[in-house]
């Protein structure tokens, strides 16, 4: 993470990073000199721009990976992910709506409400088509996500005064460009509290591997557990999206990648998915802000470039599975 902070248009060494961090911690406890050791400008780049951005990326990446892992386990759907099932788009819509109304304080709450509404709509739509198969759920999620994205764009166009295209892009593709210490607080708290809670439910998620009835026979209150865990996932997604917009595919690909290495047991899978999710998004965001310097890509563009082929591969593998079973 220190290394990711050093990468960027301004020359900053790892030592500089730690000197700046040490300085600010010292000031915080009232022990340090008021003058930053790197000079005000460079210190500002480290402490006010890059450090919070990297920390936000880590929190969002970890949170999304855990959310995807939980959704895949709970719904027995290898394609489940907060982005594909519309939660992220719903959260974006909720966030944009309150920003337009000028009630920024309610941002995480509105994002959560949007995520819950989108998830409910997806599951209701998929359920009305018949059994909740992975394919039906994804199609329903797509419809909900598109509707929310269109509504988000509409709200921004209708209200925005300045650069509405950039703003739309940031909400729909996800971007960490605006990340500051307030984003670290929201995303960090969301991931630490809710993500840690979800990580302790590994044994319960394992019991879902054999289906709802098997889980019930193992003493799990299936309906209530599903409801609680999905609500926590929506809550966490809301917190993350309110700072980063809808970053796609992190929740889809990281759980699969980690599962390939450590297997599907959730006790190990959940914490490792969080760790790799954090690392992945820190580097994806570092690439997004530096590779096309001085232009900056929304980080969602990078994750989609990496994630969409994996999604296609998963679809293809399911196809061959079904052909094999028939």
């Amino acid at each position, binding site marked *: 993470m220190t290394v990711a902070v050093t990468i960027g248009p301004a020359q900053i060494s790892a030592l500089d990073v730690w000197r700046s961090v040490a300085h600010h911690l010292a000031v915080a406890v009232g022990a340090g000199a008021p003058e930053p050791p790197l000079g005000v400008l460079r210190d500002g780049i480290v402490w006010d721009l890059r450090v919070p951005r990297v920390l936000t990326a880590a929190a969002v990446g970890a949170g999304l990976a855990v959310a995807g892992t939980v959704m895949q386990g709970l719904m*027995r759907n290898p394609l489940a992910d907060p982005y594909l099932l519309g939660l992220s788009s719903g959260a974006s819509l909720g966030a944009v709506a309150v920003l337009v109304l000028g009630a920024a304080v309610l941002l995480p709450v509105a994002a959560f409400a949007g995520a819950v509404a989108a998830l409910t709509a997806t599951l209701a739509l998929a359920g009305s088509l018949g059994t909740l198969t992975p394919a039906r759920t994804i199609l329903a999620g797509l419809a909900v996500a598109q509707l929310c994205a269109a509504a988000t764009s509409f709200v921004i166009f209708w209200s925005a005064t300045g650069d509405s295209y950039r703003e739309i892009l940031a909400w729909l593709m996800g971007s960490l460009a605006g990340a500051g210490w307030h984003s670290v607080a929201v995303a960090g708290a969301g991931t630490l509290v809710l993500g840690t809670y979800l990580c302790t439910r590994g044994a319960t998620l394992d019991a879902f591997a054999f289906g709802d009835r098997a889980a019930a026979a193992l003493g799990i209150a299936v309906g209530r557990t599903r409801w609680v865990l999905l609500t926590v996932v929506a809550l966490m997604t809301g917190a993350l999206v309110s700072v980063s917009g809808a970053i796609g595919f992190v929740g889809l690909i990281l759980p699969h990648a980690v599962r390939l290495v450590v297997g599907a047991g959730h006790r190990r899978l959940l914490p490792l998915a969080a760790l790799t999710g954090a690392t992945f998004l820190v580097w994806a965001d570092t690439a997004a802000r530096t590779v096309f310097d001085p232009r900056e890509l929304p980080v969602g563009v990078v994750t989609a470039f990496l994630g969409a082929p994996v999604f296609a591969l998963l679809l293809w593998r399911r196809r061959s599975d079904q052909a094999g079973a028939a």
Partner: protein
Amino acid sequence: MSLRVDAVSWRVAGRLVVDGVDCTPPRAALTGLLGPNGSGKSSLLRLVAGVLDPDAGRVELDGTDLVATSRRERARQVALVEQDTVVDVPLTGRQAVTVGRTPHTPRWGGLTTRDHDVVDAALAEAGAGPFADRDLGTLSGGERQRVHLARALAQEPRLLLLDEPTNHLDVHAQLDLLDVVRRLTGRGVTVLAALHDLNVAAAACDHLVLLDRGRVVAAGDTREVLRPEVLEPVYRVRCTVLSHPRTGRPVLAFDPPGT
């Protein structure tokens, strides 16, 4: 007395699937639950397992009302193996069996040495030891069924419910699996198994319960239930009951239609 099912009814979409079923499968014995497709066998097993809640009636295990027992406590006493359990995530045999410890592990705790010992013993008892480190997806139907049986044994149940355990298995795998089940009854486990194949039931069961359209039409010792006049109205087949030349157990020979 061990398991006591008392006037249990369950309806779905207004239709009575299980209609006032009474039965008392004896302790430490293998009881076969027979009946044509749609007679309510699977539903009855799920009601006893607590996966479904009955609309009426009681399910008692050694005098305790199972419906009023907490889910977790019930899962420590009753285990269910359903047919054709599909798993599409990469789990090894051991991981799958470890899931059976769920009702015994505290919410915030990890697995203890005893949990690992129980998992090892369950793998061995179900003959699933060789599959401990293999991915479930690479196992044959019979091998996977042993893993599912081991998972149920890891719950340390007093009552084991099996839904069509021998379905899709070749004859060798069927006999092997039934042999494992017989050894379980030998150490005191009560087993209730829904069975499709009457000759499997004839060869393996101590006691039978015959269901038709959600009601018990016959129950008792294997020979009492497997009589042509009992089976004919339920299955709409005619048959002759023979004796196995080695074991003396009943063997059914079915008449072709129209003879």
